[in-house]
């Protein structure tokens, strides 16, 4: 604790410190010698490829992945790609990108490896073989390659290759041997064969500084060492035994390296991975400087001191505190302590600082608690992932940049499920993004365990996932299916509450029957339709129809579709079901659309056959009659030039009667056994329309009326219509002729219908019916003959007395 500044090295105004993160857990015989090493930023894993001393054809080298603490995570056989000379991985606004330079000195890059779109960059003039050094940078959302060929610098973008010159580069350099672009793509560092280090902005507008390192050998690696809000930009250069930090001033910090190492650029420093150690080199953040710098009088330093004294129960605590309060910087002091705690790697130091902050907070009335609380939380999470067994040496700055979400993802990919869940619960991440997501990944991993039986996996998954919100069982099932475990997938799908998610996977697994029943169960016709379309394409027709037959919902949906789209399929469908009734209907409907009479008749004949098969005699007969009618109409159209085709029987009769084809009408009437009532109605209407009162009279009187029986009764029935027809045509005169023929019961009505009030009155009085007399009275108006009124009233009262 006392020696917190022991590993600090000054460089200009700032200090740099190198902290040991881990002792590496791997066992490498020769350290990193003869190894190709690459490491992912944000405390990511390390990839290691051991170069075989004697290239033997039999043993293929293994690519091994280690955590930052050197714990083996995975290994794969290496894939050799000879054409690529060198590759660089970079981050772009679109994701993680990769750039390669090929043996033909051409650059190709892809800005997002998840959506691989290769872009070949233009040729560089005069470049043969690999460039002396190169780097990828992103400016204005565009990815470019910066390369050096001897002393010349070029920028390659999608379309062009532009030569550039860094401002103020020392003239004694003949060749640029190494270059580095900062994490943010803002700064560029160039190392020349004269041992000079040039630092400037990546857009070549400004020069920051130039330092003579006095080392002329080309460095093994060069990386920027900066942090956001850094006091100065600095570069870390590594040679075989030497690590050098250069900044704006002419001084440098030099560390001796006792083993082969690799530098990893981070957002806020450089990680140095060696065979036995893993270290972090960074500029000491200003908050830490303020607090820990020897003899610092910064508020945070005073507060820390005050707390120390307080723990010792010394009254000096009060003195320090008073001093801070006098300057009214207690708030600032607390803030500094909290911030510094975030930058410290050692939990003990973190604790000391946080305790001091908490102590200071007691004397503040309205200090917001959030920063303190969230820092405590963050540190708890960070310390747990920094643990040797996990091996993610994230700094607080990196953690904030990367977000919890990504951290959880990383833990999940490393199968550290319990820790991930623990963190989600601790941070109270919403279930949907937190615990549920982790559980889903766990389950997806679980289903790949080949040795466990389906039953136990399904059980384990359902028990663990239970009712967790937002779990998609279908995704897990899909994973199971991908691993060839169809049965397990089906079992898992049973847990999926949303049928919309079940169905597509079931189809993919060729469980179409099950998919169809699930779709129908859901009540979502779109799903049913999806399955039906799928089945239609997958199955042969017979099987398809058979499947539908057992599923009425799907069947009626498909029928609807066929009605609009595929009439012929509809027919096949009915045929398959032996649904002769529907087939008959189908032919009848088809016949409407048919213009040619012969075709129409043959369609109707098919309908008749089907109706007969369906034992629907009525429909069969009706259709036959329609055919008969059509033939009759055609004949008449041809003979007489009438346009009857397509009219209904009634309309045909009406047309015939109005055109004076009485004989033909009679024939139709007989052939089609038109009920007498109807025929008489028809004829009367037609005659009245034509004002053919003579014919009507003849017709009414005709003794050879087709109704030869019960003349009397029929007489009554038909004379009433006579009156109505005549009235309809405003022919009261004609109507009067028939009133006399009306039955006594209807006389009053008939008289009233033709507006003969007196006649009605007479008839009513004669019949001595109270009701009828009242009806007549209600029709009387003030202008009615007074005598008539009196008679009616009298008659009513006598009728009432009865």
């Amino acid at each position, binding site marked *: 604790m006392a020696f917190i500044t022991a590993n600090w090295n000054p460089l200009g105004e700032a200090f740099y410190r190198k902290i040991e993160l881990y002792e590496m857990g791997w066992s490498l015989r020769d350290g990193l010698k003869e190894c190709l090493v690459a490491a992912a930023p944000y405390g990511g894993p390390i990839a290691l490829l051991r170069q075989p001393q004697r290239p033997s054809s039999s043993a293929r080298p293994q690519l091994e992945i280690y955590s930052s603490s050197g714990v083996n995570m995975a290994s794969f056989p290496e894939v050799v790609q000879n054409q690529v000379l060198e590759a660089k991985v970079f981050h772009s606004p679109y994701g993680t990108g990769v750039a390669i330079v090929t043996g033909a000195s051409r650059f190709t890059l892809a800005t997002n490896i998840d959506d691989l779109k290769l872009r070949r960059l233009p040729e560089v003039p005069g470049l043969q073989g690999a460039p002396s050094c190169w780097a990828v940078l992103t400016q204005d959302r565009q990815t470019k390659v910066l390369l050096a060929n001897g002393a010349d610098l070029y920028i390659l973008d999608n379309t062009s290759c532009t030569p550039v010159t860094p401002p103020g580069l020392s003239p004694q350099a003949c060749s640029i041997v190494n270059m580095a672009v900062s994490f943010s793509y803002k700064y560029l560092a160039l190392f020349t064969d004269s041992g000079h280090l040039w630092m400037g902005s990546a857009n070549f507008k400004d020069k920051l500084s130039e330092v003579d390192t006095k080392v002329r050998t080309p460095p093994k690696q060069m990386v920027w060492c900066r942090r956001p809000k850094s006091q100065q930009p600095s570069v870390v250069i590594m040679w075989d035994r030497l690590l050098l930090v250069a900044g704006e001033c002419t001084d440098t910090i030099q560390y001796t390296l006792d083993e082969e190492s690799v530098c990893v650029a981070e957002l806020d420093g450089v990680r140095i991975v060696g065979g036995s150690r893993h270290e972090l080199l960074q500029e000491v953040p200003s908050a830490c400087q303020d607090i820990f710098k020897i003899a610092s009088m910064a508020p945070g330093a005073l507060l820390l001191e005050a707390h120390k004294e307080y723990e010792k129960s010394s009254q000096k605590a009060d003195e320090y505190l008073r001093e801070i309060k006098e300057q009214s910087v207690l708030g600032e002091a607390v803030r500094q302590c909290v911030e510094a705690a975030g930058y410290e790697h050692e939990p003990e130091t973190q604790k000391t600082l946080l305790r001091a902050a908490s102590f200071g907070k007691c004397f503040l009335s309205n200090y917001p608690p959030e920063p303190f609380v969230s820092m405590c939380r963050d540190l708890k999470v960070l310390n747990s992932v920094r643990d040797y067994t996990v091996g993610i040496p994230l700094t607080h700055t990196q953690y904030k940049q990367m977000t919890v979400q990504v951290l959880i993802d990383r833990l999940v990919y490393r199968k550290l499920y319990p820790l991930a869940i623990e963190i989600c619960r601790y941070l109270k991440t919403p279930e949907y993004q937190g615990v549920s997501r982790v559980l889903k990944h766990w389950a997806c991993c679980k289903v790949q365990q080949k040795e466990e039986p389906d039953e136990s996996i399904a059980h384990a998954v359902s028990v663990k996932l239970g009712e967790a919100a937002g779990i998609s069982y279908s995704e897990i099932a899909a994973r199971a299916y991908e691993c060839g475990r169809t049965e397990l997938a089906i079992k898992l799908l049973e847990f999926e509450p949303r049928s919309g998610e079940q169905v597509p996977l079931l189809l993919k697994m060729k469980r179409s029957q099950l998919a169809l029943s699930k779709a129908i169960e859901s009540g979502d016709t779109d799903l049913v339709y999806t399955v039906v379309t799928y089945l239609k394409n997958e199955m042969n027709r017979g099987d398809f129809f058979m499947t539908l037959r057992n599923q009425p919902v799907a069947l009626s949906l498909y029928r609807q579709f066929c009605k609009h789209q595929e009439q012929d399929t509809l027919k096949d469908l009915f045929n398959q079901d032996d649904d002769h009734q529907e087939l008959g209907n189908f032919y009848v409907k088809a016949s*409407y659309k048919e213009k040619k009479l012969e075709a129409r008749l043959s369609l109707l004949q098919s309908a008749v056959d089907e109706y007969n098969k369906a034992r629907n005699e009525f429909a069969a007969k009706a259709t036959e009659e329609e055919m008969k009618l059509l033939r009759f109409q055609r004949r008449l159209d041809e003979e007489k030039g009438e346009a009857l085709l397509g009219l209904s029987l009634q309309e045909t009769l009406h047309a015939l009667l109005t055109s004076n084809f009485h004989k033909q009408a009679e024939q139709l009437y007989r052939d089609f056994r038109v009920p007498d009532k109807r025929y008489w109605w028809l004829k009367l209407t037609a005659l009245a329309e034509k004002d053919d009162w003579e014919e009507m009279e003849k017709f009414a009187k005709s003794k050879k009326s087709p109704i030869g029986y019960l003349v009397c009764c029929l007489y009554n029935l038909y004379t009433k219509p006579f009156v109505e027809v005549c009235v309809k045509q405003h022919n009261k005169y004609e109507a009067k002729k028939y009133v006399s023929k009306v039955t006594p019961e209807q006389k009053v009505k008939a008289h009233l219908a033709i507006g003969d009030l007196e006649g009605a009155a007479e008839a009513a009085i004669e019949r001595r019916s109270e009701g009828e007399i009242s009806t007549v009275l209600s029709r009387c108006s003030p202008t009615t003959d007074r005598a008539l009124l009196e008679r009616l009233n009298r008659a009513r009262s006598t009728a009432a007395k009865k």
Partner: protein
Amino acid sequence: MAHSVRRDAPELPDFSLLKRLARDQLIYLLEQLPGRKDLFIEADLMSPLDRIANVITLKQHDVDKLYKVEYKPIVSTSDQLCFLIRPRIKTVKWICDVVNTDKAFGRFRRYKIIFSPQKFYACENLLEEQGIFGDVTTDEWSFYLLPLDDDIISLELPEFFRDNFLEGDQRWVRTAGSALHLLHSVYGPFSKVYGIGRCSKMAYESWREQVEEGEQRARQAEIGNVFLIDRDVDLVTPLCSQVVYEGLVDDIFRIKCGCVEFGPDVTSSDKSIKVMLNSQDKVFNEIRNEHFSQVFGFLSQKARNLQTAYDKRSGMDIKQMKTFVSEELKGLKQEHRLLSLHIGASESMMKKKTKQDFQELLKTEHSLLEGFEIRECISYIEEHINRQVSMVESMRLLCLLSLTENGLLPKDYRSLKAQFLQSYGIDHLLTFSNLKQLGLLVEQQPGETLTVMESRVGKLVNDKTAGKLTDAFSSLSKKSNFRALGRRLNLVPKSDEEYDLRVPRDMAYIFSGAYIPLSCKLIEQVLERDGWTGLEEVTRMLNGHEFAVTAGSNGSDARVKTDSQRIILVMFLGGCTFSEISALRFLGREKGLKFIVVTTAITNSARLLESMLDNHA
């Protein structure tokens, strides 16, 4: 004759919010296709659209020209076409033709299809089959609900009835579920849901599913209870002639989307006038629920009042006159205008309806409902057919006969059908096939003749033993069971008593006191009993599928009769009539409740039967 609203009747929720939501979404969707564009609108979406966003609003959002979808080649010169359509195969096919024609002529345009209220996989599939899936962008306008009035909300899906009940195509069930979900999320949470019918049950389930998927928000409920009912539970009611003013206007002039067009015979000028019929129309609001026979009296009283109001002018000084002109005159004039319109409409209806045949028609209908003098009714229908009076009317009577009598005797069935075909054309063979499938017009099966026999016996004896006999027999048939239902639920009041239409005593007044609509009676009974207990017999006769679910978690305080508990949302799947709405309003006044009617469409006998027609494809 306005009914005084009971003091404790709760306020209705404000449904204009639904319109605002729909408009905002539509504007958003239109802006997804930036720049000027021509808009093609499906014919039956035009009126609903007009209620949501008028032409000016559309023009403000870069809509250049508006066209109606007419299934013909288009003449637009715009480079961007937007189609606002229902998810129907026919329309999508037409769009495919439009796009493919453009392609053939090498013409490049941008196309956007907005499906309302949702898209179906079948439509997208068609786009793919026709090879234009990549050429068009598609969107959904979730315009599920159109508030037609303070207490009526329509889905404007008239095809729901045929698709669902005849074709067995359940595609709209989810739509109904989504509509319910929308109401639930804006005006819920509902505490109790009752329902009857297969489709209702499915819609309910679809809604529950959506509730579970979405997030829940705790809020003050504005609607407490919900009742879902399938139209095919009660097919008798929509087939009866409507005699309440609003229903009658719908039967005669056809109200379209809350708006009616009165022809020259009403306006007594040479022009037609379009009138919005809703509670904003003060005159209409007071007569809409009245039996037609009462309307004239009311209107003349109103006219006299208006005259008195005008007459006030005579004794006024200048100052009074000034206030009169500025404050009252405008209102009076407006009222005057409306009054004369409704008087015109009533006169025109009077002319049609007081004629002899209408009275006889009503008499026949009432006889059918009462099960009285069936033979005479059949002869009346026969004459109707023979005289070729309107085809739909004849079909309506046939269906009523079949529904009330549990099917027709085979002899009658054949002869009536044969005459019908001769009268109106053979193509109705298919219509009959549809009617049969739906159970609207069926032949009695040999086993069922017993029921007919007992109904005859019942008419002769008309005592309790006959009633028991009926119940025993009714289990044999699974058809409409109208008689047994009528007896159990007391749907047909005794005809010998005089029914005073001025002071209605029950919901039967909407049918001149002859019949209480089954649908509304069921609602009344279930609300009264808070469930289906005691109605087992009834539900058995209605083929079951009844349910009553306590939806909200706050089941315990559901007992508390808060205001929202007295607001009941009734959803008719397959349409409802204005008469039923009037009956529910009456019930609400009686019980201190407020009913909100949600329906897939406003229907009546003509619309219902026309949807069954299959002549001319």
